[in-house]
Every structure is written in structure tokens, then in C-alpha cells.
């Protein structure tokens, strides 16, 4: 999940770059740049969430599962 978030972040960056190249209109460009930043923040949120999941201790009953 952490890596998924980290992969989403460049997507937002490329959205921002695409906005610069594709839209000469200032309003459209600004909208897409804001969307790009929003996608990056979403990716960062997912990465943070993934980090938290990694920190959560493994439940006691799951640790020995499959070994007996």
C-alpha cells in the first residue's frame, strides 16, 4: 500500500506537467495543476496509511497460523 501511494504521487506530477503543455488557457491550466497536487496529496495519504499498517503489530493468533 505504501508503494502504491508512492507510485500515485508521480502521476499527479505528470498531470501537472501535462497541464502546462496541453492547456494554453490560464484557468484550465490552474485547475489541472491543482488537480495534480490533489492527486499527489492522495498518494501521500495512501503512503502514510501504508506506513501505519506496517507499524501495527501482528495479531497474536495470526502469528502462528500455518505453522502447526
Amino acid at each position: 500500500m505504501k508503494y502504491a501511494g508512492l507510485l500515485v504521487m508521480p502521476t499527479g506530477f505528470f498531470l501537472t506537467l501535462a497541464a502546462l503543455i496541453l492547456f494554453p488557457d490560464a484557468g484550465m491550466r490552474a485547475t489541472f495543476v491543482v488537480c495534480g497536487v490533489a492527486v499527489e496529496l492522495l498518494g501521500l495519504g495512501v503512503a502514510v496509511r501504508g506506513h501505519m499498517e506496517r507499524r501495527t503489530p501482528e495479531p497474536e493468533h495470526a502469528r502462528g497460523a500455518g505453522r502447526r
Partner: protein
Amino acid sequence: MTTPAPVPPFSDALFALTLGLLLLAPLAIAGVALLNTGLGRSRSAAQSLLGCVTNIGVAAIAFAVVGASFAGAPGHAVRIAGKSWDWIGLTPLLLMHFNTLRPEAQLPVLFEFLGVGMLAIIPWGSGADRLRLPAGCAITAVLAGGVFPVFAHWTLGGGWLERLGTDFGLGAGLLDWAGAASVHALGGLSALAVVWIAGSRRGKFPREGLATAMPGHNAVYILFGCMLAMVGWLAWNVAGAILWLRVPPGGLAMIAINTVLCAAAALVATFTVTRTRFAKPDASMCANGWLAGLVSSSACAAMVNPAEAILVGAIAGIAAPLLVELLELALSIDDPSGAISVHAVGGLWGLFAAGLFAPRPGQVVGQLVGIATLLGFVFPLVYLLFTIVNRVIPFRVEADGERLGMDLHELGGGAYPEFVIHRDESYR
């Protein structure tokens, strides 16, 4: 290859003033180093401060050997959609060309040379109490030899972010005149990558209950570091304004005043927030608030009036303690120096505020493109590079070393040999 914009000649007096300011700027690095040390544990204090010094040394060498070559102008550009995208500098290695530059063109190189020293100690502070010295040096080499130079070329060396204004009509391009993006935001985001890879300190997040409080060991270091940092920051901001914005002498005093106002407003805001939440003001949080104000001033002190400077600083000062708490208690991110809240968030907020208050149309979009580049390209790249470095030179010290303390484990002696060092159990 693109040719750099001609540098207008400096008068001798202006050259001497800028050089003098740049020679004072390392006081900011010294202040942050003291802050990092004070916010860590007493049993890692010597390793922390030694790490700051070695990281600055490695940063200086890496930047001089290869970094300055990638950061400098002229650069290499590719053409996409009819526009020139200047992405990397192409000057000789080992600063071979430095003596051939005119004096006023040497000063920006010195500015970046000092900036990389500040950048080097920001992630080091976040890895306090568990990050090994060799790992700190390797991290610094990657940042100073590769990531910083390329990004600094984009923002300061005539690269595509600096040219957003001329190429796309976005204000004056990304405004990074005092290193808010290339030094502080980059340093703060690198700190997040280091913390994620190295993990939290032993016993910080127990299996049950809240995170363990591990307060800084020396409030005097922390607060004196703040005062020292302010002197360096004033020099840094004024020198940056002369070099990158060509602010005339009549506008320099206002930049210094705005710098102090940002820091002061941030301190008052943090003081108020911590007093409201905990009934008493928290010294280390107040120090972080002060620093967050200074960091945000690096982005906007030249673009705002005093009232706006107070507003920008106050928001940075409110955000810093709340974010420190959020990161630690809700998001399980163990950042002893608060670099993520102070440098990353303070820097990004300052960059946005600079766009918001700058008089040029399109400036806020230009600043957002810079923020998007930091979050969407630079941060994942830094995380990837650090993950690779961690495979070769492990970031985290062995469990036994962490238990003994980094001073004893890595240096063989403590910073305070005559004092009792607290064990882990004392934090519970």
C-alpha cells in the same frame, strides 16, 4: 545547450555586502545543528553533533566534486511541445571553471554551496538516536551530489521551474530565492523518507497505549540554536534577495524585518497553541514554531508586507505543533527534530504563501507547479534512492547499539561522561 541569462554587474560595495552576508549564513546551519542535538537524547548527543559536522563536510565535497556541475548554468535542454525544458547543468566537474567566472557569478555558487550544508543536517536530525554515521554520510552524498544540484538547477540555475514565467506566463517562475524549496522543503521530505526507512526509535510506539514521550535532552541548546539560527537566516534571506531577485538596497531592510516578523508571529502562535493545549508553553515546540516561521520566511519575506508576514508566520506557528502531534500520535512517524513539520510543511506553506501574496498574475500556479514537483517527483525519487542506499549501508543501528546509546556504540564515549544517562525504562 541553453545560455544563462546575463548577470548584471555588481558594484564593489554590493559584492562585498553580499559576500559578507553569505559568510554569516552558516550561523543558521549552526543553529539548526544545536537544535537537532538538543532535541535528541543525551546518550546520542556527541554522535548527533559530530554527524552534523561530518554531513556538512561530505556535502561540501560531494557538491564541489559533482554537484556544482549539475547545478550550474548553462544547462542542457530538451524541446517538448515547442518549449525548451532545461533540466540539468553542464559545467566542468570539481569547480574547474570557478575562477573564470566574474565575481558576481561566483556568489550564487557559494550560496548553493552553503545551502547544501543546511540540507545535509535536516534529515540527520530526524534520524536521531538510531541513524548510523556512515548512513548519514551516504544520504548526504546522494542529496548533495545528485538530488539537490539537479533540483537547484531547475529552480535557481535557469532550469525549467525558474523559466515557468517566461515560457508559460506563470508569474516570475518558481520563486526559490532563499532555498525554501531546494533546501528546506527538500530537506524535510528527505527527513520523511529517512524516518520511514530507518523506522521509529526503540520503545517509541509500544504495542499497547500511546506513543512514548521522549523529550529533548537540553532545552538550552534548543533555544540558543533558535537565536543563532535567526542571525544566519537574516543573512541568508537578504543575500538570496540580492542574488536572485535583484532587490535594490532600499528593499533589503524590509526583507530582514519580514523575516523576524514571520519567526516572531510563529513563536507567539506556537506558544499560544501549546499553552492552550497543555496549560503551559512547551519549550521545544516553541523552538520548532520559531524555526517554522523562519523557514516560511525563506519563501515569502521578499514578497509580502509586514501584516502578511505576520499572517504567514502565525499559520506556520499554529501548524507546526499540531503537525508534530499528528505525526507522532496519529500517524506513527517518529521525527525527533520535527523536521517534517518545520522544514517540509513550513517550506511548502511558505512557497504557496509567496504565490498567494506576490503581485504578479499566475504566480500562485507557478508556485503550485514547484510544490507538485517536490511532492510528486523529488520525494518518490529520494525515497527510491534512500531505499537503495539502505540496502548497501543500513540506516539503522543494531538493537544493542540503540540500547547503549549512539555515543557509546559509535564513538566509544559519551557527550556527558560525568552525568547519569537515562535508560529506556525512565521514559515509561
